[in-house]
């Protein structure tokens, strides 16, 4: 690891809880290594804050290897910062220049209220999954895998959709705070596989209804979500969700 040789100015959103008004605080870091991840840079900031008796910045993080979907910072006007296809924890300080001022905000959406500082409540996503993002399987021995033939293309598309880590960058990036990329990925990963067929119609209907109830916006097809998605989930999923939903509404027995 190279020596800390970057000077970084930070403008960070601070907010005590969901009931209070927040605001930006300015911080200055003088020993940032270009090899640090963005979150490690925040660890350094927080140590500095603790030493001076200031409340550290609250931010979400867990695995720090880009697969858990916890980190959620809106960095210089983009979710997960300027790099394509990476989460905040996989963004490194070498993506910035010495002396840069970096503005960090939480995700902004009616459905994602700020809990504290940069932490937002993403339970809305869990409630959408609970509404229908599952398959019901009888208990007993697992059957032979070859008894369920799955075309390679379907398996690949389902896998690509299942790569969604539910971080919420799509909602954060969308001008309408729409959750359609997330919901469409979750609908697609099951709709494409034989295991998902039994609940296919009711799943599309219930998940979309829950998505609307949570207060997410509608899709304007700007493509911002797919462009900012750290897992590069495709817009084809949204088209598939539209087909699934319209098809389900026209044909399901739920009236």
């Amino acid at each position: 690891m190279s020596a800390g040789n970057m000077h970084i100015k930070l403008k960070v959103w601070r907010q005590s809880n969901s009931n209070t008004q927040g605001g930006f605080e300015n911080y200055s870091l003088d020993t940032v290594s270009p090899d640090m991840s963005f979150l490690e840079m925040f660890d350094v900031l927080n140590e500095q804050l603790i030493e001076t008796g200031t409340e550290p910045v609250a931010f979400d993080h867990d695995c720090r290897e880009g697969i858990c979907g916890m980190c959620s910072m809106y960095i210089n006007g983009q979710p997960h910062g300027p790099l394509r296809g990476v989460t905040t924890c996989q963004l490194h300080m070498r993506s910035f220049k010495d002396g840069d001022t970096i503005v960090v905000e939480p995700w902004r959406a009616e459905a994602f209220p700020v809990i504290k500082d940069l932490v937002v409540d993403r339970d809305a996503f869990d409630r959408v999954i609970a509404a229908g993002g599952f398959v019901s399987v009888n208990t007993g021995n697992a059957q032979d895998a070859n008894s369920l033939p799955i075309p390679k293309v379907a398996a690949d598309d389902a896998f690509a959709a299942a790569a969604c880590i539910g971080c919420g960058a799509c909602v954060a990036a969308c001008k309408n705070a729409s959750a359609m990329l997330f919901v469409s990925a979750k609908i697609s990963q099951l709709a494409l596989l034989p295991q998902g067929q039994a609940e296919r119609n009711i799943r599309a209907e219930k998940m979309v209804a829950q998505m609307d109830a949570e207060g997410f916006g509608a899709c304007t097809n700007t493509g911002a979500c797919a462009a900012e998605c750290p897992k590069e989930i495709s817009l084809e999923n949204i088209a598939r969700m539209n087909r699934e939903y319209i098809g389900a509404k026209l044909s399901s027995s739920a009236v």
Partner: protein
Amino acid sequence: MSWFTQTLTSSIGKKLLMALTGLFLISFLVIHAAINAMIFYNDGGETFTHWGHFMGTNPIIRTLEIGLVAGFIIHIVDGLMLWKSNAAARPVKYAVNKAEANSTWYSRSMGLLGTLLLIFLVIHTAHFWIPNRSNQFATGEELNLYQMMLDIFQNPIVVLIYVLGCISLFWHLLHGFKSAFQSLGLNHVKYNGLISFVGTAFSIVIPLLFALMPISIYLGWVY
């Protein structure tokens, strides 16, 4: 709420309505542009008036016109409802937002472009459609639309408003045409290229053809 109402008032249902009415209005633009382009025959409006008379009096066309008005109203009202609910989905805006890094400005401005088009639509129908239909209703006689065009487009400010309307239409179509197919779920590797090409070509050709009409009359190319 019945399943039908519930579907059309859901987020996807509203988009479906926008797409269907949008494509219907696009089909109207083809007819409108084709018939108005008859002025370029420069035959004193003979061909144009012939087809204008057909469109203004044929019972099938007049019935479809009710559908057209309904299409406009649904597209406008649904668009405004989406605009309102989408704005409510993000009550607190970002202090710094680099939207240009992930999307085009016109795809994010469909509400604004649509509003400009609505203002234009009011001015435009006040110039031609409303006086003509009112007169038909009152006297049963059609107005001389060709002569009205020649008169109205002598005013450079009117010509400018029409050209600005066409520019708004270009940007609105450039996103809307392709977006409609995505909303209908028609995203397929075999057809995406065709949809994109036809969408871009349509967005350029139709507004350009419309813009040339007031310009040609103002510059005396058509008289």
